[in-house]
Structures are given as C-alpha cells and as structure tokens.
C-alpha cells in the first residue's frame, strides 16, 4: 500500500517528463543525447552552486526570511542561467533544430532537477506509513518546474541563439527570462517571508509556470514569424 503510494507520487513527479519526451517530436529526432548532456551540465551547475552557497552564505539558525541572504541566494541562483547558457550554446548538437534543442535541454534540465531534489525524499518519505499530501504536492511542483525550465530554455534560446529577432521584443524577452530565473527566490520569499503554506505555494507555482509558459510561447512564436 505504501509502495503503491510511492509509485503514484513517482508517476506524478517523473511521468510528465517521459510523456513530454515521447509526445513531442523530441522522440522522433532522438534528442535524448542532448537531454542527457543537459542533465550532466545541470549536475555540474548544482555542484558549483553548492560550493558557492557554502562559501558565501551564512547558515541561519532561524527559519526567518533574511533579505540580504536571500539576495545573495538569488544571485547564486543565476549560476543556473549560466549553466543553461552553456548547455544551449556550447554543447555540440548535431543536426537538431533550435526549436527542439531548447526543449531537449529544458527537459533534461528539469529531469535532473527532479531526480536530484525529489527522488530521495520520495524514496525515503513516501514509502513510510504516514500519509501526507506533501509528496503529491511535491510531484505537482515538479510539473511546474518542468514547465518553467522549458520556458527558461526557450527564452534563453531566443536570447542567445536567435540573431534576427524583433527589436521591440528584446526587453520583454529579457524581463521574462529574469522573472523565470528568479522564480526560486520568489517562492522562497512567499514561503518564508509571507509564511505561505505548501499547498498555496505549489498553487502559485503552477499558475505562474503556466502563465510564463504561455508568454514565452507567444514570444517564441512572435520571433519566429519575421524569420519565415
């Protein structure tokens, strides 16, 4: 029964990644290599971030929200963007369209994040006898994270890979990318600064991720038009 629950939570956490891969043209073009490389880049980025966090951040005894520390944390969070930049631009991808590249990279990125941050708690926690909604919410959060990662990758590919984009859209693209990149800090603020409960935070994340995904989709489509 508890294994059953673990299974359910795992489906919710990792299922969308698999579905995304198999349902979109990613599977047809065999982009799994790109995804894996993105995941590896994610791991390295996470390591670098950990080192930075350990070096620059004080360990706070209390759970309170410290603006300075959070700012620092947000800055360190931008290492993610650097990692994503590396994954998008520096990795060699053979015959893969830009359109698919960012999806593959975003997918690999989100999957690595899920495995790294959610698999272990799931394995330890969801198999326990105690029932909580936490692991289901965590799974939903993984979904939101997938959407956000792909949005960020899309915006990144717009910023760094597309040369001829409409001038008027550039500030919007950068603003959106900034918002998406600072989402971790925003949710952290909501949780600790405003004391939101987990379900509310997850709801917010799902909502914003969908909104950001829609905006970036529109931006992507808008950028594609003049080039055609």
């Amino acid at each position, binding site marked *: 029964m508890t294994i059953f*629950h673990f299974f359910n939570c795992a*489906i919710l956490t990792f299922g969308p990644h698999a579905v995304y891969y198999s349902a979109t043209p990613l599977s047809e073009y065999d982009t799994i290599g790109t995804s894996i490389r993105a995941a590896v880049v994610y791991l390295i980025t996470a390591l670098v971030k950990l080192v930075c966090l350990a070096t620059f951040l004080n360990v706070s005894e209390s759970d309170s929200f410290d603006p300075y520390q959070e700012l620092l944390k947000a800055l360190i969070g931008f290492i993610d963007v650097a990692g994503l930049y590396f994954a998008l631009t520096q990795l060699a991808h053979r015959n893969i369209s830009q359109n698919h590249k960012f999806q593959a990279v975003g997918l690999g990125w989100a999957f690595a994040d899920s495995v790294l*941050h959610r698999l272990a*708690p799931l394995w*330890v926690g969801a198999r326990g*006898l105690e029932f909580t909604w936490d692991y289901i919410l965590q799974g939903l959060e993984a979904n939101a*994270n997938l959407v956000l990662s792909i949005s960020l990758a899309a915006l990144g590919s717009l910023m760094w890979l597309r040369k001829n984009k409409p001038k008027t859209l550039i500030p919007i693209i950068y603003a959106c990318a900034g918002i998406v990149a600072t989402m971790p800090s925003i*949710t952290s603020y909501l949780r600790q600064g405003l004391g939101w409960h987990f379900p509310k935070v997850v709801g917010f994340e799902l909502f914003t991720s969908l909104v950001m995904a829609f905006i970036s989709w529109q931006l992507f489509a808008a950028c594609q038009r003049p080039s055609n």
Partner: protein
Amino acid sequence: MAKSQSPVLVEPVYSSVIALLIIVMACVELCDAVTVVDVYRLVQYDLAGVPFGSRLAALNHHAGSSLFSSSAAGGAVTDLSRTVLILPVRELNLTFIREYIGQKKPLGGLLLLLPQVFNPQNVDSGGGSDHDSATKVIKEVLVELEKLLLHANIPYPVYFGFEDDHVNAVLADIKKNDATGQPATATTGGYKLVVAAPEPKKIASPAIANIQGWLPGLKADGDSNQLPTIAVVASYDTFGAAPALSVGSDSNGSGVVALLEIARLFSVLYSSAKTRGRYNLLFVLTSGGPYNYNGTHKWLRSLDQRLRETIDYAICLNSIGSSNNDLWIHVSKPPDNVYIKQIFEGFSSVSEELGLKVGLKHKKINISNPRVAWEHEQFSRLRVTAATLSELAVAPDFLESTGGLSDSRYFVDEASISRSVKLVAESLARHIYGQEGKSIDIFADNSSLSLNPSYIRSWLQFLSTTPRVAPFLSKNDPLIMALKKELADHTVEVSLQQEVLDGMFTFYDSISSRLHIYQVASVTFDLLLLLVLGSYLITLFCFLIITTRGLDDLISLFRRPTSRKVKTA
C-alpha cells in the same frame, strides 16, 4: 504535524543544495511527520510459573476509540482483534474493561491514556492540599485498574501513555471516525499505531540491593558491652502496573526521604562527642519491599547474629507522605509488651505536641503464610522488636500500595513528611537521651538542628521522578549509587548488599518504548489517485501532441493522436 514540516520539504525546490543534504532533511522530515510518544508497557511477569500482565510488546494495528463497536456488532466476530483501543483513564468504564479482560476477548492492543498529573516527568505538579475531587476519582479508578491489570493474563500489548495535545487531537479524530460508523481498517484509512519492540526477554536473576549505614554511639569508658542499636528502616523500591512509571512518591518515596532526613539530623548530633548518644543508630534502605519484603529478609539473615541481638528495636517507615493527620504504628507483638508500650508512648507523647494522631495496630503474624504485609514483620519473625509507622490503617494486600501508577508526586505533601520526620526523630532522640515524657524540642525550628524542608523537597522530587522497580534496576544504577552516596554523607560504614530476588518471580524486559502514530491513507484513495494521475498524463500527452506536432504537421494533428491514444489506453 505535516504542516510545520512543509518548509523543510519545499527547501529542495529550487535551492541548489545537493542530494545528500536532502536525504538528511528527508530523514528529519520523516521522523517528525509522525507523532511519536513515549509509552510504558504494562508489566509482564510470571509468579511461580503462572503468567501475568501484558504478554506482548510489539504493536502494529489501526486505532479505535471505544469498546462499544464490539457490542454494536452483536454476536458476529468482531474485528477488534486488529484494533488498538485508545482509552483515556479519565472516562474509563471500569466494569466494561473488567468484563472485557475477564472474558479474554481478543484485542489488537490497548493504550491507556493517563492525565498529565500522573506523569513522573511532569515536575511542577507539586503536591499540596488543593487536590480537586476529579483527580481523586481518577486516582481511585487507577488503583482499581492497576489491581485488575496486575492480576490478569493479557495476551495483547497494553501500554500506558499520557494525554497531550498531539494524542488528544489524534484521539478526537479517531472518535469522529468511529462515530460516523467507519472504524479504521486497512481500506478506509485512519491512524495506525506502531510500536517496534522486540520480543520481551526474561530478566536473568533480578537483583535487589540493600544499603545500610551506621551512626556509632559513644561507649562509656571501660564499658565492654555492646551498645544497643536502634534501626531505622525504609524500603525504597516500588512495583506497579507500568514499571517505568512506578515512582511511588508516597510508597515508599516518603519513607526514604524521611529516613535520609533523620539520618542527616542525627549525623549532626552524633558528630560531636558531647551529644553522641549511647545508642548505635542503624539506617537501612531495603529493596524487594513489594515482594514480601524479600530484601529485608535477606538483609536480616545476613546480619551477624550478635549484631542482630543488639538491635533494641527497629522503626520501619512506610507511606507517610499523605496529608492527613492520622498515623498508625503497626506491630506484631501484643500491645502490652513492654517494648511496644515504650515505643508507642514515646511516639504518642511527641505526636500530641505536633498535632498528629498516632494509633496502635496489632496484627499477629501467621508463620505459615508467606505473605508479609509490613516490613517490621520480617524483624518480628526473627524476634527483633519492630514497628512500622504508616498512614495506612490496614495491611495492604500483595502487590498493593507498592508505589504504582496512582502514587504520584501530586498526592504527596512535603509538610506531612516533615511532620513524620519530626515525630520519629524527636521520639528517637528523647529515647536515646533519656528525656522521655519531657516536653523538650530537640529539633526545634530555626535551630541548628531544625529540619531542612528544601532537602526533603529535593529528595522527594528526585524519587518522584525515578522509577524504582528493583528487577529493572541495574547493579550500579544511578539511583542506588545516589542513595548510597547520600547515606555515606551522613553515616559511616556504609555498605551495599547485593542479593538475588527469591525465585518465585520472573520479570520480562521492554518496559518502555516509543509509539509511532501514523496517519495512513486507504488503498481506495491510492487507487483513485492512480486513476486521476493516469488520466492527467493521458490528457497531457494528447495536449502536447496536438500543440507541438500541430505546429509541425497539420495532417498529423488529427490522425496521430487517435492512434497514440489507443496505444496508451
């Protein structure tokens, strides 16, 4: 409980703390998500081979809140055999539970919730005279319950816990479930109570330790005779339904405290040659009290014959901490015996000054009966004059008034202990210094020989938080060491005598453990969740195909999804 944990769990969301740290967090989260409470198991023992008490320790069943669901089910076989009943003692129906245990009906387990007043760790529930009647009623219920449980053979685990916010919340939830007619089973969810305990093991040769200390009197020059000895004796160990909760503040913590204070007072007197009396004083803390004063018996047997004959008389202190003004001197020799008369008169003259009432009770010893109800009877059996000072008017039955569940600090009054100490010390001193019948106050307040209330209080506090069931005390238990050291501070030639408890009793370990209360989801919930998740993934799949491939190929938009859909379904 889950809510407070959510920050810990969300922590990994975006912050890039690596997996190892997360695992640690998850473990912390796992431990805290469930309610964990300390529970204390009903004692398990064999008496001459006959099993008594709770015979199991491990527990893993759903929680229920009342016995009545069984009667509601009528004659049908009840499934209470897989249910742990949580019963607060506050609202316990004694006749019902007596019937239930008497008829040996099956049960998964029993968790009895005691009010916090009875928690030994609840230090600030200091004794006083402001006992409300409700607590007294609970105390009486507890006495009855303890008697019932101690003399029953119960084939399932029985645990005692304490009411607190967590447990009360869980209980309220369970009651609500039961009220709606949905008893918790594997398919409807609810709470699961788990105690992971190994099979209880027999305790090999339970030991008892007696501690004695001397205050030697002053011999007159050229006197070759041995000085007479007065012994002050108190048994310090306890026995009760839950060994880990048997602190016995009154029986016999009060006696031990009084003995230590008397030893302290006389050590002051005996420290100067001028005031040293012509009596040796012997202080003995005996073990094995609940088991017919087995320790006293062993100690007396091991005592040198000549030494034993020098004992003029022995005063045993037993249960003197309750706040009434009546005390009894129990003797086994007829009251017109000259020694008894002398002791009684000494006590009653002092008691009048203290505003106490002391009565004399005579109970003959039946040598053929193995039951020894009072400690002095062990002395009397060896023809040593002895008396027991106690607030109990009648001799307790076997394994009763031995400091069980109900004997908490809350019902013990320091002032009564002080009064009893004064009574014993004063009458002893008058006897030693030949001041009988005179109205002098040797241990007057505010003198250098006055009683020390804070000493009494601190020792009472210590004993009231320390369970002292002899078989569960190790050889060098801190308690025994503390008593020995304290006696050594006041007396000389302190010795510790280790004996083995006579073989009638066999005890089993695992007296306390931790109860995990899990909130569990039902299988149907998980099935439903799986259904929802499956449809979510299928919808997502279709949506993604429609959107992404639609951009690539308009024709495949309508053809492919249908074929894929069939595949996944």
